[in-house]
């Protein structure tokens, strides 16, 4: 039961991160479409931003894993 609740929590964390990364990706696409010549810089910035958001999601996943762990 604890595992399931932790998994729901992880799912929620991932939901937020998914929305965040989606926005980052979408905005980056927009920006690249507007300024294709700056695509390199935009990509780097996008990856950094996405990585930072993903970090938060992974915290959630780790908490979920802890809940799944039979030893915990």
């Amino acid at each position, binding site marked *: 039961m604890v595992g399931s609740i932790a998994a729901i929590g992880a799912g929620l964390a991932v939901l937020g991160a998914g929305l965040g990364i989606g926005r980052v990706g979408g905005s980056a696409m927009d920006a690249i479409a507007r300024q294709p010549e700056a695509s390199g810089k935009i990509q780097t910035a996008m990856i950094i931003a996405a990585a930072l958001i993903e970090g938060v999601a992974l915290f959630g996943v*780790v908490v979920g*894993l*802890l809940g799944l*762990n039979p*030893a*915990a």
Partner: protein
Amino acid sequence: MELVTPDLGLLFWTGLVFLCLLFLLVKFAWKPILGAVNAREENIANALELAEKTKEEMKALQAQNENLLKEARAERDSMIKDAKEVASKMIEDAKGTAKVEAEKQMTAAREAIQSEKAGAIAELKTQMAAFSIEIAEKIVRQELSSDDKQKALADKLVEDINMN
């Protein structure tokens, strides 16, 4: 919880492996590799620069050649011009000299002709005088051959003087 609990033994081995790796790679791999890559990039950059420079030099050389050519052409033109001038001058001079000579000769000829003419006229005059005197002598002899005639003449001469 074991999943996120660091393990001292593994930490030790990780540290050992990573630091050894860092040391060995920095000393024996990254240094020569990066050195070679940098050297090559520098070489390429230098070669490109050299090519650019050579191109510039070529351009400069070409411009110089062009200039030289232009100068040569100008020189040739001027030389031709000079030669033409000299030639025309020589012709001119020759013409002038010829004219003067011709004139001189003409003058000389004219003078000769004049003097010949004068000589001839003088001779003619002398001859004419001699002829006239001869004729006059003959006439006078004839006139004075008789007394009548001498008298008639004297009269006539007196008449002429009177009339004057």
